[in-house]
């Protein structure tokens, strides 16, 4: 059944859209990620213009993160004080990200930067994750139990000026790394159409040493805020948010996430992380090929100006 997307200005199969929303939702439930980094490339590869894909996925990620954040909220798994700093800096980052998005699109380099951005970040995160999970699997084979790093251990980042006490997380750390992390994630999220959870969670764990029970909930709050801000900014700036597209993806995503979450119970943590790492690397390699191989067609055409989103 074909559905006409009024902003993308093309027809796609409704079941295809709900289907990829559901498939990515399944993975996001399985791994506890937003799934933007998978969904945006999938949409671009299936013919949706990159600006529309990036902007519409922002809405989908906000929806997918909301149900997760609610369940963490009920369990008290959110540090709202920390989240406030992340959100405020994140929104500033999102402003810059959307401005960069518009400037790059006008210059004709948006696709390049999106591809490069995905390649660099997914490649880096994917390699780090795969090394970490192989080590974890080897350790568990050998039966060695290593104590998890305790929160409260400090590193040099914590000693920077402007220290603030985050009671819920039992942290007394400089606010500068918090703001820097928040703004970076906001910038990348708005530019690349990703929630940034898969960058934010490691940053909160390894740099800020946020306790494990608060990490996911707090990062989800930041992801929702950034993606909501990005959705509004993209709407105002380039009118590239396709509500119909986003809604189809949301419906699939919200349902798929439930099945993913139940499937996740049957897999061990380190196996899950290894699988996710492979997935992340796969997407990175796909983008590397686009950049490194000689394109089949050296020429491309696009419409200039706001009306040109369909191209």
């Amino acid at each position, binding site marked *: 059944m074909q559905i006409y997307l009024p902003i993308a200005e093309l027809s796609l199969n409704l079941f295809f859209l709900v289907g990829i929303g559901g498939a990515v939702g399944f993975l996001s439930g399985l791994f506890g990620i937003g799934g933007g980094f998978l969904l945006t490339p999938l949409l671009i590869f299936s013919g949706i213009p990159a600006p529309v894909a990036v902007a519409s996925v922002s809405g989908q990620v906000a929806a997918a993160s909301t149900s997760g954040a*609610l369940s963490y909220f009920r369990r008290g798994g959110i540090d709202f004080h920390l989240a406030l700093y992340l959100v405020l800096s994140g929104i500033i980052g999102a402003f810059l990200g959307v401005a960069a998005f518009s400037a790059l699109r006008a210059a004709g380099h948006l696709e390049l930067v999106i591809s490069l951005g995905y390649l660099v970040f997914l490649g880096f995160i994917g390699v780090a994750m795969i090394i970490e999970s192989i080590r974890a699997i080897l350790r568990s084979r050998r039966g060695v139990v290593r104590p998890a790093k305790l929160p409260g251990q400090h590193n040099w980042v914590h000693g920077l000026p402007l220290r603030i006490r985050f009671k819920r997380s039992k942290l007394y750390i400089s606010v500068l790394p918090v703001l820097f992390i928040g703004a970076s994630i906001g910038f990348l999220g708005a530019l690349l159409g990703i929630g940034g959870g898969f960058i934010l969670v490691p940053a909160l764990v390894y740099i800020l040493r946020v306790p494990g029970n608060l990490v996911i909930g707090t990062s989800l709050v930041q992801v929702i805020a950034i993606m909501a801000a990005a959705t509004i900014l993209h709407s105002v700036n380039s009118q590239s948010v396709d509500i119909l597209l986003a809604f189809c993806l949301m419906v699939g995503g919200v349902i798929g996430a439930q099945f993913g979450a139940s499937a996740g119970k049957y897999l061990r943590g380190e196996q899950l992380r290894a699988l996710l790492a492979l997935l992340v690397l796969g997407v990175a390699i796909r983008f590397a090929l686009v950049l490194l191989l000689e394109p089949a067609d050296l020429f491309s055409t696009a419409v200039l100006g706001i009306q*040109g989103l369909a191209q």
Partner: protein
Amino acid sequence: MRINWMKRFSIFFFSAVFLLAFNNAGFSQRLVNALSDKQISIDSSFAGETISFFGNIEPEIGEREKVIEGTFNIIMVITGPSIDRVVREKSNKFIIWLNSNSQVYEKFPSYYWVLSDASLDDITTPEVLEEYSLLPKHQPQKFSKNANKDNRFDKELVRLMKEEGYFGINENAIDFHSNSFYSGRLELPANVPVGSYLVQTYLLKDGEVISQKAQGFFIRKTGFERFLGNFAKQSPLLYGVFAVILALFTGWLGGVAFRR
């Protein structure tokens, strides 16, 4: 298909939409045209549409001859709304492929199809096609605004537009049903640009254009699609806020419905 055609054939006869003839002294024939749809509506189930044209070749008003004679050919040119377009070329720099050279075409047609009743080579000469800029390949020269323009881009632009289905030539799209009565059909793809279209009909005899006539039709979004498109353009802030509320509500609903 035949039955459908017959229906449209009869629509032609009963339709009173006879537009003013192209009036030019010296032409002894004129064209009378009608269109199956003046307005094409794009709604949520739009997956392309076929539009039909009908026309009759008649003696010019005031001519003594009441019957037209000879063999005629028809060429129809359908031009879509114009828009600024850029063509970019990728080249290999620092081992990655990126856009380097580009050329801008201002007010370039977003859609350009040429329909005819026989092979264009048989109907007329390259000189006539050139004179009237009839072919897709003649379009870029009219719209390129670069001072130091590069002809390679013209060719590539036409090729890209053809691959997308926006430009093309169909030499079997027009049928003559008698000496003077003809019909044509144009298949609009699902990704057809929205806006006003011009149908320019050329009447040819012995390879020369002896009469021409212009007509328009309109493609627009309707209903919910139109509402959303306008909403996004006219009040973008509200649209964005609405998108966020929809996202939060859907997420909340999902969370409540499944209670993870």
